[in-house]
């Protein structure tokens, strides 16, 4: 395995709006004007029907925990151990994230638990969307 350092996303023309959104603490998705499919990650056409008529929409930030691992191997830029999770957004799409603000244990990380988005500043330009247990 090559040496790994915490990687900073470099936006492309097709994903720039998403990263502009996280910078403003907004989680942006795209919805197809033709078939109403809401999707992620970003691209300028609908992956279901190929329509290029798509609208950027703001997600509620509510999600549930779909699956995860807890990494126990040391990794620069991360506390050890730490979760690597896939969350399912209220709007449907799933995305990779970390679950923060709770112990990184199987007991605290229960599948299908309710989550809320939160943003972590990685650089001046890039915020990562993270998730934490929802307020009861």
């Amino acid at each position: 395995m090559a040496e790994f350092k915490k990687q900073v996303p470099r936006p492309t023309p097709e994903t720039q709006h998403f990263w502009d959104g996280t910078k403003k603490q907004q989680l942006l998705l795209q919805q197809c004007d033709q078939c109403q499919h809401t999707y992620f990650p970003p691209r300028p056409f609908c992956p279901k029907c190929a329509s290029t008529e798509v609208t950027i929409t703001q997600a509620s930030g509510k999600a549930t925990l779909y699956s995860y691992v807890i990494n126990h191997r040391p990794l620069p830029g991360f506390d050890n151990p730490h979760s690597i999770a896939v969350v399912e957004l209220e709007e449907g799409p799933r995305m990779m994230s970390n679950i923060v603000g709770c112990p990184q244990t199987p007991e605290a990380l229960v599948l299908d638990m309710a989550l809320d988005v939160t943003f972590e500043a990685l650089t001046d330009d890039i915020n990562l969307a993270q998730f934490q247990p929802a307020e009861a």
Partner: protein
Amino acid sequence: MKPNSVAIVGAAETTELGKIPNLSQIQLHADAALNALKDVGLKPSDIDGVATAGEIPTNVAYYLGITPKWVDGTSVGGCSFMLHVRHAAAAINAGLCETVLITHGESGRSRVGVSNTWPRGSSTLPGQFEMPFGVAGPPTMFTIPVLRYMKEYGLTHEQLAMVSVVQREWAAKNPRASFKEPITVDDVLNSKMIAYPFRKLQCCLVTDGGGALILTSAERAKDLPQKPVYINGTGESVETPLISQMEDFTTSKAFRVSGQQAFKESGITHGDVDHLMIYDAFAHLPIYGLEDLGFCDRGGAGEYIANRNTAPGGALPLNTNGGGLSYMHSGMYGMYALQESVRQLRGTAAAQVKDAKVSIAHGVGGMFAASGTIIMSNEKI
């Protein structure tokens, strides 16, 4: 492709497997290729088609002194060689070439003559939407779906551990296996935590090695010394480079599409299969594979393995070389699964399945990103 019209006539692995710090990656390709040529009694000048992954076909053809009129550099991860077999069979059927060499060589452990491929570029989709969250390679990526599977189907940690236990039993019969010492469920569940719920003994090895295959028409195979292994059915597919975007975390779409296509082409039924190889980079792979290929009902494969159906003496011998968990894993393991299928059908395997006639080698590429399936037989079926 037309079933039984093309055969594997030459097959070999590198002379050594494991730690090979004295050979560069391209030389591992060459070592395997020269062994396979010797196996079938051919020279590089007899080869007119070259397929490979990890290196581009240009590098392999030049290095071996081959002038091909057909090349395939399909590179979709560890199952690329299954796709090469499929493409080669179609090319031979179509008259594009007569005799194809497929090579694999990887200095996975010693990293001699290798260009780094990780981390992924920060502007790619994985680079933007997965890597920043600490996905630092297969142990923290390939493993992510399994908790969802466990919740949906009640698969237990003990059942998942049994995959490693059973494969070690097969490896114990194989002098070339990296790990041969017996292990128990407790050993697995007490081994070092890598990425919960995966422990060290549920993750594949990292070794050096290679393998090569030579294919030609069934007609030409008659004049060659080795018992032909006929290609009966083939399949391939891809799903997504992002594990987070898999359609369903309890089943692989690429596995299903590839497997169904291979069965359809061959016309065989599951009951005809004597021997099975399912690429096991991690312990959950055989479980997904058994279900997605249709050998077990949804959610049933963990129990099927725990009940020793795939163990020595069981009804469906699986990963009889010890698999990526115990035999070897250079990074792109699909070649070794194919090699074991060929050995079983030639009757030369270390842990030989008695009277094996039909074998399937099923591969994964990336992390559930791609798949290839090859159904083979030592008879025209």
